[in-house]
């Protein structure tokens, strides 16, 4: 009784605080919390404490394989589905204690993968056209299915079309997937005009080919009135990322270049010009059959920004989303327009991921006229693949889900969830900004100054992905990122890190595991992935301004954390004995997560890739498994939707240890 009463009173306090936040008052939250202890840290380190998922009840018999989410001005939402239906949902917020009500607004569409509302009509992209759906007789059901613009298709299964997103001028952006070859089934190809392209379509039926280089452009977004899209790893796409797509730009996949000779093409770069400089590796074996290109171990791998120097049409990602870490099949791009209703990230971007069933967060900045920025993990654990997102009127986020045929970490095949900010302030890196000599990290809560001034609280590395015709890419040209100095702002909210050598175009990964808030909260997602397309000019910090020493001992480094160096040598030692004695899961868990294996695999059950238990059944030798990590053979696993990307960056000792563990699962 007594303890319950206490809990209740605490609940009340929290509720009150929630209200404070909701009305935008800035109060010293948690000021009365007990001093930092591990217990408090752990308690506060769950995503669920800050962003809560509400699964919407869906009437039996309705299959919500969501392909599009639109918010209507009257508070309803509209959901377009892969089954070709459009449902309007009354009261998706479940106000008045009432369940949402579903109305079939339209049906019979060809795999609708997008929805946008404008002027009393819903616009949806079907496989072969952009359609305007209107209710002309006022019964709440569409009776006019008007073709705004139809584009050609070859009829290949992979020719999905996505969108639309409205540009400020009323034009609508629609993107189209490539098909794949018949013999070269691994090679994306554009069989008819505008596959692998972005089109801009106006309500009067005009179509402007906008840009090409797209492979699987599922995610569309408008940021600052500019068009952005997300692609995921595949042939020519080393990893997922988001691209700023200017008119006439080329984002890397060559298939669509086939149509740059058409009169209305905004770019003139030809396939031949590109292939003269980048080898498409279309070679045949003795029988005249094409050989599937595999990852090669080049000394100087080809990179997209290298090609950009020759072909200025090339647009590199504004932000890379490291494959397997921040997703494997990126989807919707959505700007936080809630002005704080969704928490401290107003103006930032959220990017969904189908395969990993999660959402990443991106903060953009413009340096030397180009977008770049930082990506973080944000929220995982959705019930199915996150395909579409849109804002509700209360600042909550509707998440439309499907995974049929594609596979996802979330095990349900489809559904609709709503992500609601609890009002609590998470301890996060709010943003990371590029500086002439390093980075500035801004936190959501003041940091413990002593830890923040300790250079051992930070680790970092830099790397990039290849630009080649192979499916996916390992991380390449990896280097450690040594921090030379740190300066903490007076309000303890910002930290400037001085980096010895910034590498333009590269991904800079910064880990702040050692940082705590003033109250002792660990950073919920302690890794930042900054894509440094340009290094800003300006004043560098002088040595006098920064702290450059590393304290000999720091009692506040959390227990169980050993310095990176020690881990490496321990791994090497263990690896020598790996074959003799199979390691336990606990012993390999760290490796599996470090090398992003767990992004797609689980020990016991099928996820995006096969269960390790099923790999063990194949009776591969440990050596063979290592080979397969470096050069996967997706044809060995025909029942799985996504091929594995080669992972030669995994050190052999680690790979052997993982292999020994996998084989112990037999």
């Amino acid at each position: 009784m007594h303890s319950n009463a206490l809990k209740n009173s605490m609940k009340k306090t929290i509720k009150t605080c929630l209200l404070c936040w909701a009305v935008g008052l800035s109060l010293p939250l948690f000021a009365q919390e007990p001093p930092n202890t591990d217990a408090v840290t752990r308690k506060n380190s769950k995503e669920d404490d800050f962003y809560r998922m509400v699964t919407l009840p869906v009437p039996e018999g309705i299959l919500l394989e969501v392909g599009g989410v639109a918010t209507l001005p009257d508070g309803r939402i509209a959901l377009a589905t892969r089954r070709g239906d459009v449902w309007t949902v009354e009261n998706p917020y479940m106000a008045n204690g009432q369940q949402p009500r579903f109305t079939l607004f339209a049906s019979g569409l060809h795999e609708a993968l997008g929805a946008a509302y404008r002027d009393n009509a819903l616009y949806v992209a079907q496989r072969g056209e952009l359609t305007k759906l209107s209710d002309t007789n006022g019964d709440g059901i569409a009776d006019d299915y008007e073709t705004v613009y139809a584009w050609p298709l070859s009829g290949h299964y992979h020719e999905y079309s996505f969108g639309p997103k409205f540009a400020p001028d009323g034009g609508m952006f629609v993107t189209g997937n490539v098909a794949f070859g018949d013999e070269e089934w691994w090679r994306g190809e554009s069989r008819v005009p505008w596959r692998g392209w972005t089109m801009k379509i106006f309500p009067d039926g005009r179509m402007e080919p906008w840009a090409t280089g797209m492979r699987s452009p599922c995610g569309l977004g408008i940021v600052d009135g500019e068009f952005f899209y997300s692609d995921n790893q595949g042939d020519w796409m080393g990893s997922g990322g988001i691209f700023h797509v200017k008119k006439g730009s080329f984002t890397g996949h060559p298939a669509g270049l086939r149509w740059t000779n058409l009169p209305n093409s905004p770019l003139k770069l030809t396939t031949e010009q590109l292939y003269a400089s980048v080898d498409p590796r279309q070679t045949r074996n003795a029988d005249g059959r094409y050989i599937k290109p595999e990852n090669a171990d080049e000394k100087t791998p080809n990179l997209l920004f290298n090609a950009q120097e020759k072909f200025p049409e090339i647009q590199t990602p504004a932000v890379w989303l490291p494959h397997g870490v921040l997703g494997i099949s990126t989807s919707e791009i959505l700007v936080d327009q809630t002005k704080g209703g969704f928490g401290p990230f107003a103006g930032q971007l959220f990017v969904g991921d189908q395969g990993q069933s999660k959402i990443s967060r991106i903060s953009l900045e413009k340096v030397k006229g180009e977008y770049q920025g930082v990506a973080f993990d944000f929220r995982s654990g959705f019930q199915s693949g996150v395909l579409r997102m849109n804002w509700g009127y209360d600042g909550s986020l509707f998440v439309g889900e499907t995974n049929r045929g594609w596979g996802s970490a979330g095990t349900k095949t489809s559904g609709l969830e709503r992500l609601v900010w609890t009002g609590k302030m998470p301890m996060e890196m709010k943003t990371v900004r590029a500086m002439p000599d390093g980075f500035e990290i801004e936190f959501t809560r003041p940091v413990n100054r002593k830890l923040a001034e300790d250079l051992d609280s930070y680790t970092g590395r830099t790397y990039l992905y290849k630009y080649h015709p192979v499916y996916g890419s390992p991380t390449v040209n990896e280097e450690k990122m040594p921090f030379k100095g740190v300066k903490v702002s007076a309000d303890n909210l910002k930290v400037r890190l001085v980096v010895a050598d910034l590498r333009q175009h590269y991904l800079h990964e910064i880990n702040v595991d050692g940082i705590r808030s003033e109250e002792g909260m660990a950073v919920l997602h302690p890794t930042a992935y900054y894509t440094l397309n340009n290094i800003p000019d300006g004043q560098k910090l002088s040595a006098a301004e920064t702290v450059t020493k590393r304290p000999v001992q720091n009692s506040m480094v959390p227990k169980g954390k050993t310095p990176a160096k020690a881990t490496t040598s321990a791994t090497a030692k263990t690896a020598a004995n790996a074959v003799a004695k199979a390691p336990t899961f606990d012993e390999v868990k760290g490796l599996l997560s470090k090398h992003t294996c767990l992004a797609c695999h689980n020990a016991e059950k099928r996820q995006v890739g096969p269960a390790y238990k099923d790999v063990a059944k194949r009776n591969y030798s440990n050596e063979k498994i290592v080979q397969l990590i470096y050069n996967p053979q997706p044809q060995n696993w025909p029942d799985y939707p996504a091929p594995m990307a080669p992972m030669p960056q995994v050190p052999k000792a680690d790979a052997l240890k993982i292999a020994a563990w996998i084989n112990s699962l037999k």
Partner: protein
Amino acid sequence: MKQQVRRRILIGIFSIGCLSVYCQNQPDFPLQTVPLNDLSQFKAQDGNWQVVGGVMMDRSVDAHHEEAKGKKPEKNKKMAVTSTPGTGILLNMNDEKRKSQLTTTWEHGDIDLEFEVMLPKGSNSGVYLQGRYEVQLLDSWGVKNPAYSDIGGIYRNWEKEPGKIYMGKAPTSNPAKAPGLWQTMRISFQAPRFDASGNKTANARFIYVELNGIRIHDNAEVPLPTGGPIENNEKPTGPIMIQGDHGPVAFRNIRYRTFAQDKVTLSDLRYDSYEGKFAKAGDVAAAKPVSSGKASALNWEAARREDAFAVRLNGTMHVPTDGAYLFSMNMSGGGALSVDGKKIISQDGNANSWDAKTGKADLKAGTHDFSVTYFKDVAWQTPALGLFVEGANLRRQPLHSMESFANDGNNSSPILIAVGGAPKLLRAFIDFKGDRSQRRTHTIGVGDPSGISYVYDLKTGGVVCVWRGGFVDATPMWNDRGDGSFRPLGNAQYMFTDQPLAVLGSTSASFPTEYKESEFRGRGYKLDASGRPVFRYTYNGMDVEDQLVPDEDSRVFTREVKISSAQKPANLYFKLAEGKDVVLMPDGSYAIDDKQMYVRMLSAAKPFIRDGNGRKELVVPVENNTVKYSIVW
């Protein structure tokens, strides 16, 4: 989304349907044709059966009017059936005196039989296998819930005594066509089995029956003779009997293949089992087995592991009769078959188990040495070894034991779309005439609650096909990733893929086959009050509306194309149909493509028949801004 390795596997699964035991086309063993130059294949009859060269049945005239009752037709009275002399068509014109059944001079047991049949309005006939098991023939055009008594039904008997009553079996759907059109039936029949003392050990069985390309029975046993048999008993063989006393009926292209009951058997089986990775059958022969011994059946069991193995099985094959035999082998991995030391099948390297490898051998009746080699170095597939044999008079039979080759095909749950109380619309790709290379990409299926459906091509303003029965099978689109296509759930009557409305430079100019964005723009469709779509497009500045509605008791579609444009260009034509031929029928409609469907004009302009692409086209000039006609099938 992500690239799909699975694609190739899916294709494999979808094609299993046609590589499996029962539905393989057999050019190796063609069917025998019943020559219809005369009636020499049939026993004597009253004269109601005759051989003719052409037949025309007026679908508007009931077969049971006076003419059929032996009375002289009145002058100008419409005739249900007219014929022209010649050969190739078997026609029954019975009256009250002449109404024999028609019986073959030969008898059969197990048989595959196919034929084309034409019935006038209201007529009734039937084909009795072994003279005892009747598949009903009836003008069942448009019947919604077919019974045993409708076309394709296995007829009932009229016994009263419990235990002797058989109530027949209704076809699982009704793909019947309109009176006067040719319909195709395929029957695969297995005779009842008897022991040495003549006791029945297995019932007669329809392995399958297909009407107009649609399966209507699969694996249906018939425990007793159906009504009106040649004799009310069951025998190992009997003649084909065709009913001739219930109205006119015509047949052509009657073809069959009979089968003996003797099977190929194996004996004295021995195995050698090998471990390791093999790439060629020859390498296995040279290797040393890890174990050898007697085998109880032809299977891969002796391997005792899932991969990196080889097995060899040797023994004696007993062949029932002299002749050519076709062997086919299914394996995940590689292998070989030799008979009497001669290589019949050889598969080096990996094959997929659904991809049968075949070889033919001329064998004498009696015993032969045989050897089967199977090796597997393909970890991701489960072991599978199947061996089938087929002869001119031997139904394809497995020689392996059941567990050795699990031919489970595609067992994902089908996604069948039904039409409810309102019209059902669904967009998908459709493969024209089932041909993937003729895939249409901007097509929409429209299912009418009355049970008839069509597919409309939004890129040409053309009707792709019409059918009756269910709506569509969306499994190809919605199972797994899918390929974006659906299939009509019924016997689809395909039209053509050209753009039907066109300005032609001359009356012999072709209709456009390619979509020209500058000339033709689809505008989508509006739903009318009943929920039926009105399609809209612009062509050369003209706004066009196009709608199909059910007509004639919801058995046909009437289509009206309306041009709302002040100025109509000259030389505007509309293509109604195309086919091998176009024939003007007595009722003023046109029979298309060797009597596969009709077009019946409702607007005033007179169509004309012309040549186009080696076929005949039915074309009408557009007058009064309207083209209106019915599609009858």
